[in-house]
Each structure stands twice: as C-alpha cells, then as structure tokens.
C-alpha cells in the first residue's frame, strides 16, 4: 500500500502487478478511507475493545460509497475461485 507520484510511476515500479490496475485510489478517497470514525479515537483508553471492532464495517461501507466493490478491495473471495 504505497503512495506514488502518479499512476505512471506506479506502473513502472518493477513490483507492480498487472492485477493491481484496479488498485489505484485517488488521494482524497484514500484520506477518507483512513478517516472513518473509529480512526478518530485511536488515542482513547478503550480503543482496542470499543473502537477497533467497528473498523471493518466502516471500511466496507466507505469502499462501497466510493464504488470500490470488487473482491480486490473488499477482501471477499474472487468469483473465479469459488
């Protein structure tokens, strides 16, 4: 999960995987993805028990909101492998 100067720079990266063409995310969307409510509470004494468990649902809801609904982003099994 990296930041690149542009998509072209990412594609020139020797480790770039062809499958990851669907792995680009605009910076504002990325910032939003890592700014869901639970993230605001990482320094609270009960973060691990009270806030961290909410993270997965928040992430999924956010990804669906920005249209990243493929298994690659949601972490669900690929259709082809079912």
């Amino acid at each position, binding site marked *: *999960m990296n*930041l690149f100067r*542009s998509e072209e720079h990412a594609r020139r990266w020797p*480790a*770039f995987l062809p499958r990851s063409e669907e792995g680009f995310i605009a*910076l504002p969307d*990325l910032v939003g993805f890592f700014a869901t409510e639970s993230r605001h509470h990482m320094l609270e004494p009960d973060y691990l028990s009270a806030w*961290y468990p909410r993270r997965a649902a928040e992430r999924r809801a956010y990804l669906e909101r920005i249209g990243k609904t493929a298994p690659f982003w949601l972490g669900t099994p690929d259709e082809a492998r079912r």
Partner: protein
Amino acid sequence: MTDPQLRDAMFHRIMRGLVDTGRAPHYAELARPLGLSVENARLLLHEVMQAYPIGWLHPETDYIASFPPLNNLPTQYRVTVGGRQIWFAQCGFEATSVTWLFPSQTVRIDAPCLDCGDPVTLEMRDGSITRVEPAGVIGHLNFGFGPSRGRPAFL
C-alpha cells in the same frame, strides 16, 4: 484470555509511547506500570497483537515491528510533526491516518517514490490535506485486501 480492560491498557500505552517517543515500549517496560510480572506482560502483548492483527511482531520474536498507523521498524514513510522526524508510518495508506494521532498539528509525510526515488510529500492537519507534492500523488494497492489474495496486507 485476559481482562479486556488490561488489553486496552497495554494497547493504549503502546500507542501513546509511539506517539510520544517515536518507538514502541518493550513489554518488560510495561509490566510494572500495568501491575504484571514480566512474563505475563509478554503474554499480554501477544494477546494485544492477536486482537489488533493489522499490526505485527517481528517474526519469531516479542518485538513490536508494526503498530499502525505507526511503525516501530523504519519504513520509507517518514513522519514529521513540530519539526521532529522521529516517526514512521506503516505504509502509504496508513500514513494518511497518522493525522488522527496528532490533533491540531501539521503532520508531514515524506517518502521517495518507489519508481524514481523522487520525493512524495503530503501534509495534513486534523484529517485534511493541506499540501501535496506533486499534485498527482496517488495511492496504490498492489495486492488486494483479504486472505484470498494470500499476501501480506502491507504490500
């Protein structure tokens, strides 16, 4: 399994230690403040990491390597706050959430582009981007999320 409040307490001390000093405390340092024996603190650390699987210990050790959004092991994502560069982000994505650990402060992320080595710079304050150079900076996920991809989530 330990009392969840004790896990919360250790988690909080690790995160607070990272924010305050740039490094995660060792479990032996946390034992006495938490009222535990050193061995029980070590066991508790493993419980904390199991409950927070987006972080990890260095393989076959009890050393914290990654405790996102920050990393105890240096990465290319250098974090500067208040003129001090003592932190590292776990990855480029987690770097964008370091801002939530430093309220009302400007958080600067500097990293070399993995393609060309030229700089990527991002500044944020309270969750908002205040500066980005170059303007075309983009996030890239090389391996998809989830166990079906079978690769470490940090790549």
